[in-house]
């Protein structure tokens, strides 16, 4: 293990991770991004990228991601190509497939998602032989050939449109009733007006057939259960994604039943100093712009966390003198009333005792760590150890003196 302790380690180099790297490195934090493939993530697998603000039509996914990557590097973010296979989130250590360990003060998880597979007969064996989840990668093989696209969300319909630039015909297989798509209206309109696109409604795929290369698909009508075989040269599957969070399973991280990481609005997970951003977290909209926004928020939250933790360590834990930490909040009447008398009582010890006031709202994490639930609470520290705690009505001149007299001797 190297001795270096990073400020931020980011796991995953899609738009979420790259945006976090930009914000982190620009704040002069020692920022390391670990990406198992090439930076860019899913966004680098789509040619048509027309909804990232400021980048109009003509922008490509790989192009935009190249710009994100260069931007992060220009501020000094370090990018390592490796896969994180193990994490100690409490201890802030990550271990990679090649056996390296990296230590950090904070971790931002940005592992994104991968296409969901159907697990139907023929799908696995015919990958690379006509079954694909990536139009950008494989589109040009299908020049003048006939293909089917399964799915009807944004990705399915957008990629189907893109594929018509190459293929002779694109048949979209939709599970809903005729005319109903989950994709955005603008994408629908374009697809309905595209003469190369054909539709099969109320249906899904039951099997993909072929000897060496895809030759046909078996389409199942979900209303009648009828099976029809249709000749085709290729199958593109866009039926949603699954989060890449398997490596986090036993890390103590809170996830939902489908493996999405749970965070609050600051991108904080249930573990202090650990954040999650982008498609891998529970959220409403999974897009480049929201992944990037998450990344920015997490990096700023991580920066604050580091400052707070270091501030507390320097002013309280590493202080030679006894420290009285008064947790309070100006919003709580009782705390507001009691503060002057606390300040006077502690102040009477002059240089022998240090008073640190902590707003519980702005220092929630520290307050929680020391079990502070009531306002005000005084926690007395000496040489990094908690010596005594006084809560609310137990706080008065006498009780404070009792603790401090002993300590300041």
């Amino acid at each position, binding site marked *: 293990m190297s001795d270096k302790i990073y400020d931020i380690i980011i796991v995953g180099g899609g738009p979420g991770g790259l945006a976090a790297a930009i914000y982190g490195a620009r704040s002069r934090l020692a920022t390391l991004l670990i990406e198992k493939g090439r930076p860019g993530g899913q966004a680098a697998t789509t040619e048509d990228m027309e909804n990232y603000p400021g980048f109009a039509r003509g922008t490509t996914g790989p192009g935009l991601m190249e710009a994100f990557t260069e931007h992060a590097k220009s501020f000094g973010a370090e990018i390592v190509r490796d896969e994180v296979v193990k994490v100690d989130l409490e201890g802030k250590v990550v271990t990679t497939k090649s056996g390296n360990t990296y230590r950090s003060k904070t971790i931002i998880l940005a592992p994104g998602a991968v296409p969901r597979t159907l697990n139907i007969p023929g799908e696995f064996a015919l*990958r*690379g032989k*006509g079954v694909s*989840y990536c139009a*950008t990668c494989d589109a*040009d*093989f299908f020049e003048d050939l006939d293909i089917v696209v399964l799915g009807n969300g944004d990705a399915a319909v957008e990629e189907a449109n893109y594929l018509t630039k190459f293929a002779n015909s694109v048949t979209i297989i939709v599970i809903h009733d005729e005319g109903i798509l989950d994709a955005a209206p603008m994408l629908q309109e374009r697809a309905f007006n595209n003469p190369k696109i054909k539709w099969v409604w109320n249906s899904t795929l039951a099997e993909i057939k072929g000897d060496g*290369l*895809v030759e046909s698909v078996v389409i199942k009508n979900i209303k009648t259960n009828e099976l029809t075989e249709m000749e085709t040269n*290729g199958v593109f599957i866009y039926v949603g994604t699954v989060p890449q969070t398997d490596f986090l399973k036993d890390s103590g991280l809170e996830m939902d039943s489908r493996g999405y990481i749970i965070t609050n609005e600051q991108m904080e997970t249930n573990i202090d100093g650990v954040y999650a951003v982008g498609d891998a977290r529970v959220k409403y909209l999974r897009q480049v712009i929201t992944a990037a926004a998450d990344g920015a928020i997490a990096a700023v939250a991580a920066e604050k966390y580091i400052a707070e933790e270091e501030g507390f360590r320097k002013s309280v834990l590493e202080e030679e003198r006894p420290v009285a930490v008064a947790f309070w909040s100006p919003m709580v009447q009782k705390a507001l009333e009691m503060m002057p008398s606390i300040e006077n009582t502690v102040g009477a010890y002059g240089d022998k005792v240090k008073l640190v006031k902590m707003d519980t709202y702005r220092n929630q994490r520290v307050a929680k760590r020391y079990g502070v639930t009531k306002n005000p609470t005084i926690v007395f520290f000496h040489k990094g150890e908690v010596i005594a705690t006084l809560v609310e009505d137990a706080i008065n001149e006498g009780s404070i003196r009792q603790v401090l007299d002993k300590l300041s001797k």
Partner: protein
Amino acid sequence: MIEVHKENFEAEVLQAEGLVLVDFWGPKCEKCLAVMPDVEALAEKYGDKVKFCKLDTSGNRRLAISQKVLGLPVIAFYRNGEKIDELAKDDVTKENIEAKILSLLA
């Protein structure tokens, strides 16, 4: 690594003796570009036992399809002019390629 294409594929791959690895890739395939350095590193390591070739499918679509490749990435293995094994899509990782080389050499 030897660049193979429609003009030299027959001579370099199909007429070659021993084990030949062909990396089917394309400039728009991010995954292909990501593993390329790994394949190059393996070429350094096993180059004396395996002939390493790469095929840019973007200019050689018919050739790729004739080799039953219709999607990327694919790493195919040939021996005495015949395709004997291959790895496709997510299975294309440095570890899997190396394991395949070792088992085919054994």
